[in-house]
């Protein structure tokens, strides 16, 4: 059983939805980023999405774009991102890590080599925003061979017919992008999320995580009630940014801010279905 399968099975057994946390690898600098990553499981992250910084993150809003910029300025690159995962795996062999980002840095690394190196580093899944199923073969074939799940994105604009194509070779989980737009902007109504999750559920047994526009503990809790997991990204990345001065240098408690917010999110998500049970 893969780490993702095991984690979602455990969540099901606990009767609760999961919390997926996004942070950008190398933000605000390499050292603190390693510390944040290491602290996420204890703070309550069930699955970790680790952003691979890219100069042109077209699906992301300003917060995540700035995080990418800070990471790149600090010297983060694909080799270091994989090294971070490998280091994390020395002490945690259970928390799934999904790399999220854009295709060009993977293509530049060499798709086959990246798949192999990511597999041996302990990466569990890949979310590549600009790599649709029609274009992915050169990467997805070696990735699957390395035991890595290709996480598919479904958007509000995705037709039922298209969902069939998307879930065909999907594994790990399905990521429902709940808003029409970039990360960290608007939020979708829970009723709208629920009906779309149901629409996807008709076509796959894979867990469904919902992201984009989920900022607060209460929003995360609401989403975790209707989906298998809630993904929070921008709001966590903003906690990192809030502890920096105007030049991006840490001026406050970066680790405490960030992990503290993750704890609040985790607490809310964990108590979400208790209410239902009562």
């Amino acid at each position, binding site marked *: 059983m893969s780490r993702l399968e095991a984690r979602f099975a455990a969540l099901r057994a606990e009767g609760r939805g999961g919390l997926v946390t996004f942070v950008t690898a190398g933000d605000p600098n390499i050292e603190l980023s390693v510390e944040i990553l290491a602290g996420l499981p204890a703070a309550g992250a069930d699955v970790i999405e680790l952003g691979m910084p*890219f100069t042109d993150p077209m699906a992301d809003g300003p917060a995540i774009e700035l995080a990418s910029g800070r990471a790149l300025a600090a010297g983060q690159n*694909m080799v270091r991102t994989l090294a971070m995962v490998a280091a994390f795996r020395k002490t945690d062999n259970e928390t799934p890590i999904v790399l999220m980002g854009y295709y060009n840095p993977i293509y530049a690394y060499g798709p086959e080599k990246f798949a192999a190196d990511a597999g041996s580093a302990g990466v569990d899944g890949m979310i590549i925003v*600009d790599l649709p199923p029609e274009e992915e073969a050169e990467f997805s074939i070696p990735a699957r061979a390395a035991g890595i799940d290709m996480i598919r994105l479904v958007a509000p604009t995705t037709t039922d017919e298209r969902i069939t194509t998307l879930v065909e070779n999907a594994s790990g989980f399905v990521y429902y992008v709940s808003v029409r737009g970039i990360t960290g902007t608007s939020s979708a109504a829970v009723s709208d999320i629920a009906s779309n999750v149901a629409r996807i559920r008709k076509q796959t047994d894979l867990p469904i995580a919902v992201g984009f526009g989920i900022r607060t503990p209460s929003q995360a809790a609401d989403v975790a009630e209707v989906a298998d997991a809630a993904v929070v990204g921008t709001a966590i990345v903003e906690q990192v940014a809030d502890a920096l001065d105007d030049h991006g240098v840490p001026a406050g408690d970066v680790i405490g801010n960030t992990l503290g917010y993750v704890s609040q999110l985790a607490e809310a998500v964990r108590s979400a279905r208790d209410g239902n049970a009562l």
Partner: protein
Amino acid sequence: MTETLNTYRAGPDENGHFGIYGGRYVAETLTPLLREVEEAYETAKADPAFRAEFNNLMTHYVGRPSPLYFASRITEHCGGAKVYFKRDELNHTGAHKINNTLGQVLLARRMGKTRIIAETGAGQHGVATATICALFGIPCVVYMGAVDIERQKPNVFRMKLLGAEVVPVSSGSSTLKDAMNGALRDWVAHVDDTFYVIGTVAGPHPYPAMVRDFQSVIGIETREQIMAAEGRLPDTLVACIGGGSNAMGLFHPFLDDDGIRVIGVEAAGDGIDTDRHAASLSGGSPGVLHGNRTYLLQDDDGQIAEAHSISAGLDYPGIGPEHAWLHDSGRVEYVSATDTDALDAFQLCCKLEGIIPALEPAHALAHVLRIAPDLPSDHILIMNMCGRGDKDVFSVADALGVEI
């Protein structure tokens, strides 16, 4: 090494690929939309009413056909090939860009879209989009890099006069690529009512093919005009390349004519051997950006490098995927000209021909000035004068150290 193909004009395949280039590398939210654009375009292309409306406005609004002009004094100056200019700078709005914006806005109307967005570098595409939107009374939002806004003030004011909203983009290098990111982010948030008018032969399928088709009027007219003037097809075609739409428009109708030498001129900025240039083919490598696989300026980690050129319209770290394919297949030669080369050509063209060229075609002219002297006097060379230089006089004055 290079294998000669039966045709260089059959692409792309049904998934939008030109060899390994092109494709549709976009976020899932945009996928249904791109299929919608593709289907609408295929239907429109086959519809005589659409073509009639397009052709009518091309004649009476844009002012086509643009002349094919024998540049006698440049020819005399070079003392070699006969140099012709395809005068696309005489189009309404002063560049070739309007050929494409007219086509795309007509398509957007057919699709029932009520809002238009565009990206712009030099501002020519933004002006051409704003113009057609004014013509049809459609709201228009143009994304433009903050650096470009500064160096292309006249075009920014033109767009505003035409009723467009100009949104400054200050991420990354604050130039054309960042403007394109801005437009893509807008589009993904307004998929229902908005049509994205891409200004060059790049982006996800079907844009590279669609923009090429709208711009091909340049080459189609040129064929007829040179037959009328010289009784034969030309020997050499030259055009500048940023994304590559004016070049593709001129080249495409000639690609299957054996023996015609076709040359694209990229912007070499301070020089290809420096890190300040915009020559994706000569100085870049294949990658994926803005919806397609093509040659890009990038580092070893796949991070996109900033492009540099005195010409805002060529200041883009990528190039249309069909050019990438034509480069690899060897059918088209790609060379480059530096900022200095372009500035020299710009001034010479003003003095010898009474034509103030845009800095973009000044790059093409710089290469013409390099090769024409060594060619025989019966050699016919056609260069696409794709834009006029009124917008550039401030940048040129600045580069020459002149205070206006």
